[in-house]
């Protein structure tokens, strides 16, 4: 294929920019958030309903789809702009609510089911004469940024929710592939590495190793071919940062990988993406085809003589394949098991060749760093951890979602300011960062700044960005047990400390939550944890005890209550709790009786009911359905 020279790319970019401006300034412009999250909430039906509503109102509109804007609790989300009025983002925009959204926007009718998330305020970061566009929402009245966006700084997520991820023109219009142009025409590979190193970018997969230094190692190894690998095997429960980037802005990852390929001297890239992300894979395939068509992938990119290609490798559902050596084994068609390092991938990786493995976000940062400059990036965040951190904020907070904040912001700010505090007015208990291999931190540590080193010092880890908030109704032993169960299911089985140690630890946790624990079990947990940490082959086994050890460190009294008092203070462990009806509060409405799946509740109408503890299965359904708070658990 004939590559287009930089000149014709500039022409294409100019056309794309014009189209982009036409689109966003269209008389009627509607976008729907079509990430997996939006689609799962019904965005597909919403889109159909919008078409119908537009037809009904006889409006000639530009309808676009965009990636996830990060506000999970509001999905599906729709943005509406017409007749020069401000662009407004609506949440809970299910197909059924589309008519009322249109009625509200055009006719001023009140909203009943859906909500106004905010007015869309384009945000532009200007530096060195370059611009980085992103979007945020402001309050329609005060024009202040909404609480969700106030403390956020969207760099790697800048395009998510802004552009159509299936359009390379949208990406080009916002200066996409400009960094690649700069790299190929003005910089030597060494200069690229130097620039990335100077930015202080640390690997966003969780390890936090300086990205530029890693690239330098791979460049120095005198063996060919070399490989650039993107680790998109995001497997932490409750984490979806990488998915959102791939679904919302796939070209930024591709651009970052091409730049990395040029820097280390590789001609082939692999994106190892878990098969559970079909939409991400589809959008990557579309993006790769578009990039190939424009000669941004393939031989002699932009006439530079440098050629690069990217292949997608789908995972087969193993968490451990997020570990870089297991990932490479999987690409090689072998069982996904880690192999020992050294030698490191930069020396001997995929098929024994020098390979550079980075996380999705690390690659996505790269074009932005090249374009806006290492100095700009270095001055964001903290000295040791420049830039921003992306978290998937989940659990018991009011506003769950995907957030990007400058490094150094405290956990408290993320949970209370961005996340809006604990849901249902409950009390905060703990926050787990870093997924099943991370640690949990209690209230006392909420002022810990979020960066690689501070979190590690506090006994948690940055991880790749999962952040799960637990409220007072969470039993920390059960919480730890959940993660240990995950590790048991996901241990690859290669080395005995992880394979057997995790099972032994789970057995102890199961005994404790079943009311059969003994005090010696706590020492045994610590002993097993030490053995696993020191003995395991890869980070999965070494870090697997962290959720248990950190809960034991901060919530030992809760473990002891399970063992010594045979009591679960959070009222969660079925074997240790009793449901009881408070006679004074019970109105005898019989609702609990009808809902009890094991017929454990008896009583006459308008008389206080009674729960038979022998028959009660401790499902808690009665407590949920009681309107009078007459059922207590102890």
């Amino acid at each position, binding site marked *: 294929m004939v590559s287009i020279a930089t000149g014709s790319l500039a022409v294409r970019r100019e056309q794309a920019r014009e189209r982009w401006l036409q689109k966003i300034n269209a008389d009627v412009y509607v976008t729907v958030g079509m990430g997996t999250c939006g689609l799962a909430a019904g965005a597909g039906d919403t889109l159909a309903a919008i078409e119908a509503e537009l037809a009904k109102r006889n409006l000639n509109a530009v309808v676009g789809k965009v990636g996830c804007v990060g506000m999970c609790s509001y999905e599906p989300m729709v943005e509406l702009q017409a007749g020069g009025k401000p662009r407004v983002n609506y949440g809970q925009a299910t197909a059924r609510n589309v008519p009322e959204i249109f009625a509200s926007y055009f006719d001023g009718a009140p909203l009943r089911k859906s909500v106004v998330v905010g007015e869309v305020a384009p945000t532009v970061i200007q530096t060195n004469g370059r611009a980085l566009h992103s979007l945020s929402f402001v309050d329609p009245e005060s024009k202040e940024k909404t609480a969700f966006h106030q403390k956020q700084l969207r760099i790697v997520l800048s395009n998510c929710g802004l552009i159509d991820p299936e359009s390379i023109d949208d990406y080009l219009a916002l200066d996409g592939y400009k960094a690649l142009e700069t790299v190929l025409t003005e910089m030597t590979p060494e200069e690229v590495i130097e620039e990335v190193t100077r930015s202080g970018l640390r690997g966003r997969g969780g390890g936090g190793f300086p990205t530029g230094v890693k690239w330098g190692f791979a460049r120095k190894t005198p063996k060919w071919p070399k490989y650039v690998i993107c680790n998109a095997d995001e497997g932490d429960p409750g984490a979806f940062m990488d998915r959102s980037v791939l679904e919302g802005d796939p070209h930024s990852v591709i651009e970052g990988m091409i730049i990395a390929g040029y820097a280390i001297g590789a001609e082939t890239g692999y994106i190892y993406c878990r098969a559970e992300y079909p939409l991400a894979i589809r959008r990557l395939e579309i993006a790769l085809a578009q990039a190939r068509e424009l000669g941004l992938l393939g031989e002699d990119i932009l006439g530079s003589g440098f050629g690069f290609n990217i292949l997608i490798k789908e995972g087969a559902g193993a968490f451990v394949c997020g570990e870089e050596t297991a990932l490479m084994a999987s690409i090689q068609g072998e069982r996904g098991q880690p192999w*020992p390092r050294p030698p490191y991938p930069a020396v001997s990786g995929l098929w024994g060749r020098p390979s550079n493995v980075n996380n999705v976000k690390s690659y996505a940062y790269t074009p932005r760093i090249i374009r806006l400059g290492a100095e700009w990036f270095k001055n964001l965040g903290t000295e040791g951890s420049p830039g921003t951190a992306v978290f998937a904020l989940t659990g018991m907070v009011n506003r769950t979602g995907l957030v990007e904040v400058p490094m150094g912001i405290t956990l408290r700010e993320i949970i209370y300011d961005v996340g809006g505090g604990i849901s249902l007015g409950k009390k905060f208990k703990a926050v787990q960062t870093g997924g099943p291999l991370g640690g949990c931190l209690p209230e006392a540590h909420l002022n810990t700044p979020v960066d690689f080193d501070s979190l590690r010092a506090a006994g948690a880890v940055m991880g790749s960005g999962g952040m799960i908030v637990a409220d007072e109704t969470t039993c920390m032993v059960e919480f730890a047990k959940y993660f240990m169960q995950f590790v048991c299911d996901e*241990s690859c089985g290669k080395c005995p400390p992880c394979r057997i140690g995790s099972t032994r630890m789970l057995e102890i946790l199961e005994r404790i939550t079943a009311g059969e624990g003994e005090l010696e079990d706590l020492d045994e947990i610590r002993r097993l944890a030490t053995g696993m940490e020191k003995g395991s082959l890869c980070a999965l086994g070494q870090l697997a005890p962290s959720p248990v050890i950190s809960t034991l460190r901060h919530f030992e009294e809760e473990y002891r209550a399970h063992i010594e008092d045979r009591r679960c203070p959070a009222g969660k462990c079925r074997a240790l709790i009793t449901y009881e009806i408070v006679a004074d509060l019970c109105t005898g409405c019989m609702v609990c009786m009808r809902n009890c799946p094991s017929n454990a509740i008896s009583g006459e109408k308008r008389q206080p009911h009674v729960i038979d503890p022998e028959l009660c299965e401790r499902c808690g359904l009665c407590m949920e359905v009681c309107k009078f708070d007459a059922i207590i658990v102890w």
Partner: protein
Amino acid sequence: MDVTLTINGQKVTVPDGSTILEAARYAGISIPTLCHHPDLTNVGACRMCVVSVERARGLQTACTTPVFEGMVVDTESEDARETRKFVLEMLLTDHPNDCMVCEVNGDCELQDLVYDYGVAWPEHRGVRHSYEADPDPNPFIFIDRNKCILCSRCIRACDEIQNRDVWNFAYRGFKTKLVAGADQFLLDARCESCGQCVAYCPVGALYDKMSLGAGRVSQLTKVRTTCSYCGVGCNFDLNVRDGVIVRVTSAHDAPVNGMSLCVKGRYGYDYVHHPDRLTRPLVRAKWLGAEQVEEQVANGNWQIATVAEKYVQPPASGPQPSISDGTFIQTDWDTALDVVARKFTEVKKAHGGDAFAVFASAKCTNEENYLFNKFTRQVLGTNNIDHCARL
């Protein structure tokens, strides 16, 4: 290029690219291993060879970590020893406590390490695997997955040495299980029953089925011999108990084949004690002369043979079988060889040496074939000699 490092305070110089384990063994320092075998690639799975390396993060596996100039290694650090003990204890929490009746008692790498590290049998309330013993109909290879420590030596031996790639792991975590093919029977998974997997198994998970209950290492005498099946000349050890071969084990120091053997060499030894085997010569009665036959049979030196030795014993009572010209008589070697020599001489005199054609066998050793060649050309006087390996 050579690299000098320090192991346990001792300076060691080894070629660049060596592993810590190789350097230590070169210096006479022993590091325990389970999944390592010098014939196989190193995978660092069992964690027994962990050692402390100065300035390295965490323990390193000696079998996989390359040495570098100035490296300082402590193979007996407290961390390393404690971790090894932990690994052994973990393995034992999912291993039967049946060394007393185990086939490999006294010849088991796990047992030796448990002994060396003084690990007690862990009593616990958790799960242990209870796989069916001998679940595979393969006639030669016995499997007891309850004893398997998932070291993957069998997998690598099959893949890297035999190139059959029969074995692998299936499932994950504690459920990880050694399987043939797609969890099939061995013979359905391309297994050619060479027994390499058995030879490399450090424990009693894989064993030779024909040798079950036949004797353990302390009861056996090993006799090094050369395989009689083909001309490759593999060496192995016959494991003999009370004068009977009960097992063949390959030997790492065998010059031609190392640990490798084929199905015939490893399992084809039952002919040695087979009742059908001819151990004395049989000669047709007509070549011996009726009188001599009658006399020698009468005084018990020769016997009347029917088909093979097991039929040789005459019925205890009743009439003896009659002797015709074609009857086989079991004679002594001298008599039989005399007959052969006499017939050869007759043929050569009557028709010349080229009346003979000689066919040698790949089952003979090189030395035997050499002698056969000399005999054919110089004694029989013909060049009509060929060999089955030429076919």
